[in-house]
């Protein structure tokens, strides 16, 4: 069956894609992507030709902490500047995706440099082979310290990393035995970090003296590696960590686990991962399709995402607005639209970080190794108020370059009927849609403003933008 897509529907599909694979889009971005069509948009997002963003040396000139990263703020700020200024948003989105799964937190690391490097690894390797990514993860100094693998010794194993590698990072509970955990841990003995004792001493006291903190490095200690025979998931051999990952990646359970994670993050919210053994996925047929791609492409994440984004399930209207925006998606999306940082770094960048924290997502510091549960759990009475206040405040700031531009184009439409004016606003906010009942309410407000004549064209446009972005629908993507 050939699906005929109208131009309007194609526009909404592209807007939907940009909300999921990015952080939404400005009207200029949407117009460009509409001109090249949906399929080419998918290709460009997955294979950006030339990545541009605000350079690190510009950011660190003003924000001293973004390279030394001693406290909880510097690393997230470095990332926030990337997310708000990049022309390749999927590179950042995929880093966010892996950060939510391979959740590592600065609370234990005491110092953000290793976290910045871990996120960079997700950015650089997150669209490649899942096998290579797991190997990089297993050698990542932040992860090694976070899950104690530096204390996993030949003669005294620490199962922490081995257990989470199987349970939360690749296969999911119920797909391996307790003995597999132990054998997995044995294979990763000797995978450590340089200067582990000093790192631990500084972390224990959150010390930054005498000369601040240092970057961390992976170190393989052959004398501390158990090179004896192991039996893992039914196979026997003198397995190394790399061998273990090779075996993990071959498992049907791993393909299911990763495909479901991808669907949960990019397609529609699923229940928290701990519930997966007991609750069927939303789209079992699509997951089967993605698993096939996983095995056919040597576990390639980019190929799986391509298949997802081109699938009818993804493009269908039934998938639109089925996810609650995470705080980072909401805050970064709004900040990109308002272009608040269009003139360069600002001292109040900390407020962007604080907004996310107050909405329940302190990037670089997930609550547990399970990461954030997400979905409807993002929204409670407290965080919803934070979300609405943030949107209202940001869209009410007419000094932001993006708002200025939006209002400049909207004031010419002041004489339009409320329905048309609201449609123009939703178009300029990224071809978004709201439910009919919500729109009726907005129209009635707009009519009142017009009848009262209390708002000039600028304030009328600003107020309507604020009303739209504080609706329930704007919290979804």
């Amino acid at each position: 069956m050939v699906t005929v897509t109208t131009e309007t529907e194609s526009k909404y599909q592209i807007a939907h894609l940009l909300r999921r694979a990015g952080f939404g889009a400005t009207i200029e971005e949407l117009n460009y992507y509409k001109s090249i069509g949906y399929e080419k948009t998918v290709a460009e997002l997955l294979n950006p030709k030339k990545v541009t963003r605000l350079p690190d040396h510009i950011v660190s000139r003003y924000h001293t902490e973004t390279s030394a990263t001693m406290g909880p703020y510097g690393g997230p700020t470095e990332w926030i500047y990337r997310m708000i200024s990049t022309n390749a948003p999927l590179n950042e989105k995929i880093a966010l995706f892996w950060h939510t799964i391979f959740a590592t937190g600065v609370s234990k690391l005491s110092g953000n440099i290793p976290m910045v490097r871990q996120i960079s690894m997700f950015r650089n390797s997150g669209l490649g082979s899942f096998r290579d990514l797991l190997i990089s993860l297993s050698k990542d100094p932040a992860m090694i310290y976070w899950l104690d693998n530096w204390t996993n010794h030949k003669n005294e194993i620490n199962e922490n990393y081995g257990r989470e590698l199987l349970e939360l990072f690749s296969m999911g509970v119920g797909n391996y035995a307790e003995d597999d955990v132990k054998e997995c841990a044995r294979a990763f003995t000797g995978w450590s970090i340089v200067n582990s004792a000093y790192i631990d001493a500084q972390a224990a006291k959150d010390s930054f003296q005498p000369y601040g903190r240092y970057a961390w490095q992976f170190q393989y200690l052959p004398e501390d590696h158990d090179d004896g025979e192991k039996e893992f998931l039914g196979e026997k051999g003198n397995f190394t960590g790399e061998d273990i990952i090779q075996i993990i990646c071959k498992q049907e359970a791993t393909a299911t686990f990763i495909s479901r994670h991808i669907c949960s993050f990019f397609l529609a919210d699923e229940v928290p991962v701990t519930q997966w053994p007991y609750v069927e996925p939303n789209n079992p047929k699509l997951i089967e399709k993605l698993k096939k791609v996983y095995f056919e492409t040597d576990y390639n994440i980019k190929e799986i995402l391509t298949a997802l984004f081109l699938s009818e399930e993804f493009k269908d209207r039934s998938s639109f607005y089925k996810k609650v925006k995470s705080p980072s998606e909401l805050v970064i999306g709004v900040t990109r639209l308002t272009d608040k940082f269009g003139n360069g770094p600002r001292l109040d960048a900390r407020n962007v970080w604080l907004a996310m924290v107050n909405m329940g997502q302190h990037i670089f510091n997930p609550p547990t190794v399970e990461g954030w549960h997400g979905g409807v759990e993002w929204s409670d009475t407290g965080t919803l108020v934070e979300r609405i206040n943030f949107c209202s405040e940001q869209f009410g700031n007419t000094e932001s370059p993006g708002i200025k531009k939006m209002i400049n184009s909207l004031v010419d439409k002041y004489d339009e009927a409320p329905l048309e004016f609201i449609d123009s606003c939703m178009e300029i906010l990224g071809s978004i849609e709201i439910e009919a009942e919500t729109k009726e309410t907005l129209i009635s407000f707009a009519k009142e403003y017009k009848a009262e004549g209390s708002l000039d064209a600028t304030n009328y446009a600003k107020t309507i933008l604020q009303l739209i972005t504080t609706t329930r629908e704007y919290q979804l993507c």
Partner: protein
Amino acid sequence: MVTAKSENFSLKYKKTIGFSGKRGRGFFYPRDLAIGSDKKLYILNRSHEVDSYAEPESVRVAICDLNDRFYGDAGHFGEADGQFMWPTSVALDSEGMIYVSCEYKNTITVFDPEGNFQHKWGKSGIGNGEFSGPSGIIFDKNDNLWVVDHKNNRIQQYDKFGNQKHSFGDSDLLNLPWGINLDTHGDIYVADWGNDRILKFSPDGDLVSEMTGNGVLKNPSGVAIDKNGIIYVADSGNERLQVLSSDGEPIFSTRGQATMSQWGQEFLDVNPDEADPRKSANLEYDLDIPENSSPHTISSYSDKLFWGLTAVAVDEDSRVYAVETNRHRIQVFEPIN
């Protein structure tokens, strides 16, 4: 014009001053340094935005000397008079009054030598007496303050009371300039950060020469000139102290040689739980660091290399002081020629 002797020029590492500390002895993200006629060192500490709000005193001018004696401090973070938010540079007039530029508030704030607030001037804008991000500042022999108005891409001259006297430069010439200094003739040297060069101007603002160190400079943030005309550049993009002859030829460079400062050692002496594992740690840069790493990244692994080099100053004895933001310290060198 005096041409500096550059044959066999070298710098000898002398010592390291400071350690990380938000109050009392110590520096916290230091950005600039001024040297008083009494040989005291005035180190401007920028801190960072979260600690600034939580611990306003972490943003300040800390006063010490080459012999590690700590004297006190001036100013702290805040929006009120006598406070600054994104301080960038510090300078001293002939009476020892302390001047601090703030690129967020667009002000110059003045303290007496004891650190008491006196007055301030400046506001946001592009007109006379206005700033868009004042960064490097320096006094000339006539007590005129030269200010790098960096986002306006111009250099402004003021008297010590804040009356504008002169202005030159535009975005065709300068690209987000940062540090500024003067030689003994009163010629002006500007670290033209975004254009990877040092520009030398006459006191009237006429361009005299451009120095790129034969193309090696990358985002220079600070500059100082000794009495022989030797030019010292905080070559921040290369994390390197680059020395140029008076005609701009590169004659020496160093990536840093820090050792433990007196304050740092005293901290370690009373914290053996950190000192002992530190002794056995490898904090040098000969580790297996990823290929193609930037100098900034390489420095993040190292104890002795400059990391976040932002400013350089020279005292009357030609000692060279290099300010490292990310390691919270000053490395001191002496010329051997």
